[in-house]
């Protein structure tokens, strides 16, 4: 009898232990899931403005919105006239933007949610296009009218690339958005501005990097060439020209090439801290150097012509070429550049790229043929704009850009 009692006791104890282990496992499982859900819920509640956290204090993003911008820059209501000349299109950080073809539509991707918005730059009317939640999108490229390339971090913190395609049907007023994952080997992506295609630099085996051309949805990849290094910026112009520019560092010589079939034709060689902004449909070229001591800007108005230094201390990536003039027999070569209003000091490029230094820029118009510089817009002193990724619409009326301080999206109307 005692023997059976001991057996039952042991079985009971074992059952209790197993039950406790099971409950403990369930607890940790639920805790993990709750954390994930909390992240998603937080992001899901994020619509246009950033929600505040608990307590009376506001979130950092709200501080950005309320602190940087005056009301006149934000207050645009549909049907109540055109936006102000300098308009903060998105108060929350974005991942990327682009003008849609020759239209007046500016498309951007919200960083926190991956939601896509279309903005009519003439009326200021903004429409949320998609409802798919893709949290924490670090980089986005608009490809044609239906595709968006999204770059984010996977669970291990490695950069991953998603290709998203807008559908033709809507669901609750939002366009369906389906994505496919290109994996973690993509280093750089450049969209074509005229064709539904992308160009990518992808890491291969044996320390090589492949330059790959593919359809906008990532299908039909074609290898263009293979290189032993992969640290390049890609520039794919509307005329089909493709440029590879070595990633810059202050004082470190860099090279720029045009890819012609499977060969690299040198454009610039051994320029320290090199950044290049080529002009489509011409041999004109704008580039900057940073030798560690100072930043210099140069222009080549045409292929084979002499190079002129522009008396503006800024980098080429803060500049955009105006589209070719129409209606005139002698189209002018115009560049719009944002330039710091204060001295930037040594090793500017390194400090700027690492987010150590941010500038407060004014806008300048440059006649590339004459090398003449004219300041044409200075923001209010309460607005500090560190311009990055400027882009111009096809009519040459608007410049859209991101503020590198907070990744907000801005629009500047060129003419008063």
């Amino acid at each position, binding site marked *: 009898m005692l023997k059976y009692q001991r057996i039952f006791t042991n079985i009971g104890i074992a059952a209790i232990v197993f039950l406790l282990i099971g409950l403990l496992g369930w607890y940790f499982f639920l805790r993990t899931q709750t954390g994930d859900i909390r992240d998603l819920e937080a992001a899901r509640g994020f619509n246009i403005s950033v929600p505040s956290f608990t307590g009376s204090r506001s979130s*950092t993003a709200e501080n950005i919105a309320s602190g940087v911008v005056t009301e006149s820059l934000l207050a645009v209501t549909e049907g109540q006239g055109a936006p102000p000349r300098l308009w903060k299109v998105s108060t929350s950080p974005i991942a990327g933007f682009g003008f849609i073809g020759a239209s007046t539509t500016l498309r951007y991707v919200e960083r926190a949610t991956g939601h896509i918005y279309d903005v009519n730059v003439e009326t200021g009317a903004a429409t949320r296009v998609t409802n798919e939640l893709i949290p924490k999108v670090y980089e986005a490229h608009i490809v044609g009218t239906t595709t968006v390339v999204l770059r984010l971090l996977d669970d291990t913190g490695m950069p991953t690339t998603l290709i998203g395609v807008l559908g033709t049907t809507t669901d609750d007023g939002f366009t369906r958005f389906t994505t496919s994952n290109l994996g973690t080997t993509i280093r750089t992506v450049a969209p074509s501005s005229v064709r539904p295609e992308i160009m990518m630099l992808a890491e291969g085996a044996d320390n090589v990097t492949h330059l790959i051309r593919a359809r906008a949805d990532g299908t039909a990849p074609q290898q263009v060439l293979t290189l*032993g290094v992969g640290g390049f910026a890609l520039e794919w112009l509307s005329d089909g020209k493709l440029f590879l520019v070595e*990633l810059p560092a202050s004082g470190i010589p860099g090279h720029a090439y045009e890819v012609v079939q499977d060969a690299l034709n040198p454009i610039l060689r051994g320029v320290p801290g090199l950044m290049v902004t080529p002009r489509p449909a011409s041999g004109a070229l704008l580039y900057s150097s940073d030798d560690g001591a100072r930043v210099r800007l140069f222009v080549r108005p045409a292929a084979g012509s002499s190079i002129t230094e522009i008396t503006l201390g800024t980098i080429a990536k803060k500049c955009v070429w105006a589209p070719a003039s129409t209606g005139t027999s002698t189209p002018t070569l115009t560049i719009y550049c944002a330039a710091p209003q204060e001295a930037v000091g040594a090793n500017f490029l390194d400090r700027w790229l690492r987010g150590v230094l941010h500038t407060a820029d004014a806008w300048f118009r440059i006649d590339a043929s004459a090398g003449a510089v004219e300041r044409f817009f200075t923001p209010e002193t309460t607005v500090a704009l560190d311009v990055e990724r400027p882009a111009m619409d096809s009519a040459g009326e608007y410049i859209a850009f991101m503020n590198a301080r907070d990744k907000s999206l801005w629009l500047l109307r060129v003419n008063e």
Partner: protein
Amino acid sequence: MIIRLAVGACIMVLGAASFVEAQSDIIFERQLDLTLTPAHPAPGQTVQLSIQTYALDLRRSMVVWYVNDREILRGIDRREASVVVGNLGTETAIRVIAEDEEGLVATAEAIIRPTEIDLLWEADSYVPPFYGGRTLPGTNSTIRAQAIARFRTPSGAPIDDSNIVYTWYRNDAIVADGRGKSSVTVSGPSLFGADTLRVVAVSADKTLSAETSVRIPAVDPFVMLHENHPLFGVLYHRSLEPGATTLETEQKVTAVPYFADIVSPGEPSLLYEWTVNGATIAPDPEEPQTLTITAEGYTGPADIELSLMSARDIFLHAVGKWQLVFGEQSRFFSGLNPFGQ
């Protein structure tokens, strides 16, 4: 570079200097040295030509220079000349004749074939995701390098990489060579040092050659802090400036070890030692590079210190100090104050 009888492939001496001793019937082959600077000219570049010899007294010799059989310079003691070379695939024939007062003659000839070669490089050290700058070598880094040579035949046809022999030098020691070996992976410079990486490319038929080198300095890895926002992720575009102020009650910051020899800042070989206001904070086992500071009911400074070491790389030791103020005035930006305050 001094050219004697035969020179590097892009400059080919066709005939050695000759010395004719008129007083006897014996003909001596003597040397006229023709120097070209640069030794491997690029298209359109000006090449400085100079001669010297012990066979003649050039101070009393008539020197005549020819470029592509056209006389470009003549005169007593004219030891130097210059020529602008053509495009890739062109040949510029140089001939110089020197004759002294006694009728002794020496000549030298060369063919200049312009070439181009670039050396691109990057390190495999860590930079944050989507970083737009060059990856520089920190401690224990590896350098990936690519030579891009542009050789053309006189017909204008490009010479393929497979018909070019590359020899790679790291600080004058050969580290790799071979036909078509246009890229290499070599160990990077030691801490606080700098390496010179050099590549010499010679066409298989040895008619063309080019050479270039780069100096690659080592960078001491350093650590920077970035806000880790719950909605936006790590704000790599702005670093935490000293004395930054936040209005949040809880703040997550993530350390970014620039140019460290790692793949990910969360890898187990890295040892993060965090302290806040002097108190040691145990790192999060899953995300040791991220520190969360909760300041419920507290306003004031939080002095953050981070010491980063690696169990795999004994030279990696990055230290950083920051002050984050939990207060009423937000100034969580680096650089200028965007609020204009």
